[in-house]
């Protein structure tokens, strides 16, 4: 299977380059620091916290840590994906490979799977370690830990697929910057949509919906937030009225099945676009 051969080669490349080791090292430091920080959250106003207070604070801290994970995951996906095809073309390493009996589609899908595998190698152990440490320190497990990891990884796959499609035509640096800007625009778009709901402003709501459809990264991030929120907090914030909709660190519901299907279709479509664009490319 040449697809798996290219995937293996891609994983090996990412693991042997320093970026990955640096990323793992820094993430482990952050995990250690947040775990230490959470262990300090025991008192409020000089008296010991109640369990409800502790869960509230810890769950919100975890959402911020989750954002750090989502951020580094998306950025790593972009940094790995944006130069993956263009870099091989610029350096010339693609010439010897593509002159072999391998199709362009196999090459692109192999690269895609390789980066996804690397994302998983990074994300699964680090998030598992973080959640495990929090559980050991304050006996708190977020309500949907697997969904949290799942939404975050899908967010990474979405932005990776975008970066890979850009990589068929743009130099690594340019494609990477474009992908990150779009990722940021989608995040802001989510906030604008939320503000639209708060203010009952149809235009802003439509902007939010459109960005959610054009690039489903923020939609997945909201899913990850929802997965970390205890039911009590969701109930409390909902009761406080619609204002919370403007908060990018809050989600009252998980993405629905239709939106998940849209996200899957989006990934397939952009992967198809990447393959088509690479097939048309002269080398």
């Amino acid at each position, binding site marked *: 299977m040449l697809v798996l051969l290219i995937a293996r080669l891609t994983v090996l490349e990412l693991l042997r380059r320093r970026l990955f080791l640096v990323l793992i090292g820094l993430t482990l430091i952050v995990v250690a620091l947040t775990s230490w920080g959470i262990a300090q959250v025991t008192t409020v106003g000089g008296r010991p916290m109640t369990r409800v207070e502790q869960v509230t604070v810890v769950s919100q801290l975890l959402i911020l840590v989750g954002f750090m994970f989502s951020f580094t995951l998306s950025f790593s996906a972009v940094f790995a994906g944006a130069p993956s095809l263009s870099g091989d073309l610029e350096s010339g390493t693609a010439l010897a*490979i593509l002159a072999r009996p391998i199709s362009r589609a196999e090459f692109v899908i192999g690269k895609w799977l390789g980066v996804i595998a690397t994302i998983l190698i990074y994300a699964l152990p680090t998030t598992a370690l973080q959640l495990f440490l929090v559980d050991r320190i304050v006996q708190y497990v977020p309500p949907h830990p697997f969904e949290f990891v799942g939404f975050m990884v899908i967010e990474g796959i979405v932005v990776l697929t975008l970066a890979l499609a850009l990589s068929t035509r743009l130099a690594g640096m340019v494609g990477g910057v474009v992908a990150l800007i779009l990722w940021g625009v989608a995040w802001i778009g989510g906030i604008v949509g939320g503000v639209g709901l708060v203010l009952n402003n149809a235009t802003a709501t439509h902007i939010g919906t459109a960005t959610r459809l054009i690039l489903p990264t923020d939609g997945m991030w909201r899913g990850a937030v929802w997965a970390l929120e205890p039911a009590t907090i969701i109930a409390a914030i909902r009761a406080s009225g619609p204002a919370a909709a403007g908060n990018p660190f809050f989600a009252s519901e998980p993405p629905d099945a239709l939106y998940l299907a849209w996200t899957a279709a989006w990934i397939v479509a952009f992967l198809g676009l990447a393959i088509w664009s690479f097939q048309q490319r002269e080398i």
Partner: protein
Amino acid sequence: MIDTPAIVTRDLAKRYGALQALAGLNMTIPRGAIFGFLGPNGAGKTTSVKLLLGLARPTSGSAEILGQPIGERASRRRVGYLPELFRYQPWLTAREVLLLHCELAGVDRAAWSREIEDALAVVGLQDRGSSRVGTFSKGMQQRLGLGVALLGDPELVLLDEPTSALDPVGRHDVREIIRGLRDRGVTVFLNSHLLSEVEQVCDRVAVVDRGKVIAEGTLDELLRSDTVRMRVSGLPRGAKDQLAPFGAIDEDGDWLVVRGVDADRVPDLVAHVVGLGGRVHAVEPRHETLEDRFLRLLSGD
């Protein structure tokens, strides 16, 4: 299948925007030939190789390699390729690069280890097999690329400027490798602008310029001399003009240079000069080097 030529092209053309990189390439390269593809920089040599390997698509025309239409996966099954821009994964060792290409080329797993060690030995990298490619000099990378091209018992090997980064010893080694391929019946397509290199190993040559083949044939055919130099004294003024039917006449000091004269007519030419009152001291066919011929072809002479 073995009866099909190694490479056939029919009006193969490639246009990049306003630039006509290749303008109707027609050639047939028989199996087992060592084919030199000569031309100045920018003549369309690398473009031709990329079209043959399906790395770029022709604007028009068609071609087959090893009996398969270009661009199809099957056409690349028994082909080795050393790109002009030879770069291999710097984070892999030389052995790992060769292993990667064994897998890509579909070499039988049982043969991998032997293929890899053979390739390393042939290109003189047996001591550096476990070193990362990132630590290699350009010359070593080109040697590795040659090893990659030789993997898996190819029937056709395309070498694009294979000695551009090599020292004289390396160039000699490459010639020996090419001769070894000839002995095994492998067809070699050698892209080069190094005329002496081509002259030493190739048995057929095409000269390409501005996207067109301007001469093709065996080296003997291409360098066949149709020029004779004669040292003549005592030839009356104006008598020279009477030699015009034999060919174009030039003077070079004591020497008369007659171009375009058929070898069979040289005795007649000498007799004619003597008949006109000339004393002939020497007659010699002018042997052309590939370089002379090449420069003359490019100047449109």
